[in-house]
């Protein structure tokens, strides 16, 4: 009995050391990648793209479901993006509110007899609307039968007329130069590698001042939960994704903001309806497709804060969101289990997938096993409490250190939180996060795994305050901040 416990405990111990080591390695790689990015772009004039006849046309696809309260402002924000040649394809996914009517009225839309190609199978399209006002000529609204976010995105991809497609959450606030920055990686390759996707950093808009759909002031949120998520997002996006992009092992481009090579997206079959984590699944499938077809490729990542989103500020909603993310994680790993530990897929199979499997999927399970063993050992009176607290401190101080590295990275790069009081608020969250937030996230992940075992498919309910601080309800599936930081 003791020997069995010991073996399990050793596994957990080694696992913990590995995960700590991997975080430090990722942080180091991110630091290097950020330096390269800043050096390279210190003299990039993105306005050159803005005025160039060589700039590729883009499509901005955003699905919307029951967004009536904010949809007009959101579309106006999209219409004001800085880019010369782009179309906005807004897919009304069978909203039951007056979203469509509001769009028709505000943008003088008229139903057109336009046939959308069926590159990707989707639910029925009920109508295509374009504006009679030249000021809104970029806007195309597609009304369709409700089919979920993935289905709506697929309709948008079918409808877009350009080679590159940006998929965004309709309620995200994009920086005005976000398209200019996102398209650059597609333009600057000089080797034979095809850029299949480019991901952007998503930052937290809670606490920020947003006027007319534009971010005018960045501040750390007042309430604890969003503030901890600020830390979490900085860690995940600035330290995690940046490193994975450098390793050419990026598995996830947030559904909130990503730019894709449409041709490859269509060849891969578009977004799948089989998982609640359709964004991660698509990236994995695109990469898998490129490997299987022996086409050199790269998936890139932009560290600039280009997209701002609202995150849950209650434990109930946060728990539901994280539970869904972990379900999506499991589903994606299962769908693409073939690539795991498979040398045929290079780094994807031997590095990214195993990392995701071991450190993202298994972590909550091992942590939970850990706590159960703690209880068992405590019951058996086998715990040396002095040493227990020493090791507790070991993990706690590491958590603090890693968060401080993330804050330092943010400070040295984008320095978004300029007020000293914001810095101290973040430090306060750094100190508290391991004690409250992390256990809760682990618990939510386990709930997600249990959900997978019982075949749970729903997206749950979500209540959001909205940028105007007015309460509004909607279905999580179509509305929730889906930025998915996926802890490093």
């Amino acid at each position, binding site marked *: 009995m003791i020997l069995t416990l010991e073996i399990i405990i050793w596994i957990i111990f080694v696992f913990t050391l590995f995960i700590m080591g991997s975080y430090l390695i990722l942080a180091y790689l991110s630091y290097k990648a950020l330096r390269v990015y800043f050096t390279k772009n210190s003299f990039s004039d993105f306005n*050159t793209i803005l005025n160039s*006849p060589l700039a590729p046309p883009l499509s901005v696809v955003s699905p919307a479901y029951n967004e009536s309260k904010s949809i007009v402002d959101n579309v106006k924000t999209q219409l004001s993006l800085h880019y010369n040649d782009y179309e906005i394809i807004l897919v009304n996914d069978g909203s039951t509110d007056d979203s469509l009517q509001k769009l028709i009225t505000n943008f003088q839309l008229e139903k057109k007899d336009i046939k959308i190609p069926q590159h990707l199978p989707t639910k029925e399209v009920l109508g295509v609307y374009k504006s009679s006002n030249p000021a809104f000529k970029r806007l195309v609204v597609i009304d369709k039968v409700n089919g979920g976010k993935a289905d709506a995105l697929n309709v948008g991809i079918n409808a877009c007329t*350009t080679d590159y497609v940006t998929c965004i959450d309709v309620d995200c606030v994009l920086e005005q130069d976000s398209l200019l920055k996102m398209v650059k990686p597609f333009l600057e390759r000089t*080797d034979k590698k095809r850029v299949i996707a480019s991901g952007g950093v998503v930052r937290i808009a809670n606490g920020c001042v947003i006027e007319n759909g534009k971010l005018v002031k960045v501040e750390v949120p007042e309430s604890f939960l969003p503030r901890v998520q600020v830390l*979490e997002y900085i860690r995940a996006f600035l330290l995690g994704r940046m490193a994975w992009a450098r390793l050419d092992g990026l598995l996830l481009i947030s559904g909130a903001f990503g730019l894709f090579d449409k041709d490859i997206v269509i060849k891969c079959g578009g977004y799948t309806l089989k998982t609640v984590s359709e964004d991660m699944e698509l990236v994995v499938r695109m990469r898998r497709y490129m490997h299987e077809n022996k086409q050199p490729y790269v998936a890139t990542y932009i560290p600039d804060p280009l997209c701002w989103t609202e995150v849950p500020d209650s434990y109930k909603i946060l728990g539901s969101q994280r539970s869904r993310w972990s379900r999506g994680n499991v589903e994606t790993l299962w769908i693409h289990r073939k690539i795991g530990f498979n040398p045929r897929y290079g780094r994807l199979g031997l590095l990214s997938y195993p990392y995701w499997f071991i450190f993202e999927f298994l972590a909550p399970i091992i942590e939970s096993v850990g706590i159960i063993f703690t209880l068992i050992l405590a019951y058996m009176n086998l715990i040396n409490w002095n040493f227990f607290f020493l090791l507790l401190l070991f993990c706690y101080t*590491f958590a603090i250190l890693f968060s401080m590295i993330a804050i330092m990275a943010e400070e040295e790069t984008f320095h978004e939180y300029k007020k000293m009081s914001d810095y101290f608020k973040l430090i306060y969250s750094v100190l508290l996060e391991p004690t409250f937030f992390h256990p809760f996230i682990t618990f939510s992940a386990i709930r997600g795994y249990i959900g997978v075992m019982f075949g749970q498919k729903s997206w749950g309910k979500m209540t959001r305050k909205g940028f105007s601080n007015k309460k509004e309800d909607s279905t999580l599936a179509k509305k929730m901040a889906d930025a998915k930081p996926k802890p490093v």
Partner: protein
Amino acid sequence: MILGILAANSVANTAVNIANAVNYPFAHNIETIVVFMILLFTYSSIILFLAVIILRLRKNQFEKRAEFIKSSLNGLIMGAAFASTEDELNEVLLQAKPAFNKYIRTSSQGQIMINEVINMHSNLAGQSKNNLSRLFAETCLMTYTMRNLGNENWHVKASAIRALAQINSEAHIPKIEKYALHHNIYLQQEAQIALVNLRGYDGLDFLGKLKNALSDWQQINILDVLRKLDKDKAPDFSQWLSNKEDTIKLFSIRLIHYFQQGYNSDKLEEFVHSENKLLRNEAIAALQKIKPGSHFGSSNTVKA
């Protein structure tokens, strides 16, 4: 994020076992190692905490100093830019030289003023532009730029090349030219843009010698400079259609398209059946524009 407290429990249990029940060689030292690691993590965190504060203070200090330098030298810059006679300019330059030396003490401060003068330079025209070029050349700004050009870091070197191009320093063309085919792609790109900036269409000579691909990004940047030149003086861009590098052929087609060189339509027709989809599409689009009546299908490409 880190496994955190829950994992810590597990690790703690492990340690208990190590300490109490197991005879692994390092078991007796683990407590010391853990204490050492805790101290290391704690001190590192404190150092980072303080480093952020120091960084903020230094940034503030730097910004204040930069503002002070800008406001101190702004009068001289404006004076030089809007000097109406040679004598007036010489007088301003006489005061500017010691003043610039006095206020600019570091290369980062120098870079701030380089950017300041360049920004103003790009917003002006005619004599004012020339005056600012002289101010740049005759003060320590040129010294800093030349020092940057000799710097080992490619990005510092590239920033110097950009500054020289933006200030129209034709005297430095030979120094810039040697980087046009440099192995560092970013340095190479900056030098190529600078050459087109300084030499106009003649600056495109490097295209014939280039061995690597010309990225779309670089094509956008070069075209951005070419668009400001007199279209009537544009050379025959078909000279690069026979280049071995497909991206250079592509750029040539795009230039022929943009500059509406209808006399090259026969040469473009050879690309209509090219195996390279990009070349094919670009040639078709160009032909549709420069040779009205030609029907080769549709494509989305350069918009002349």
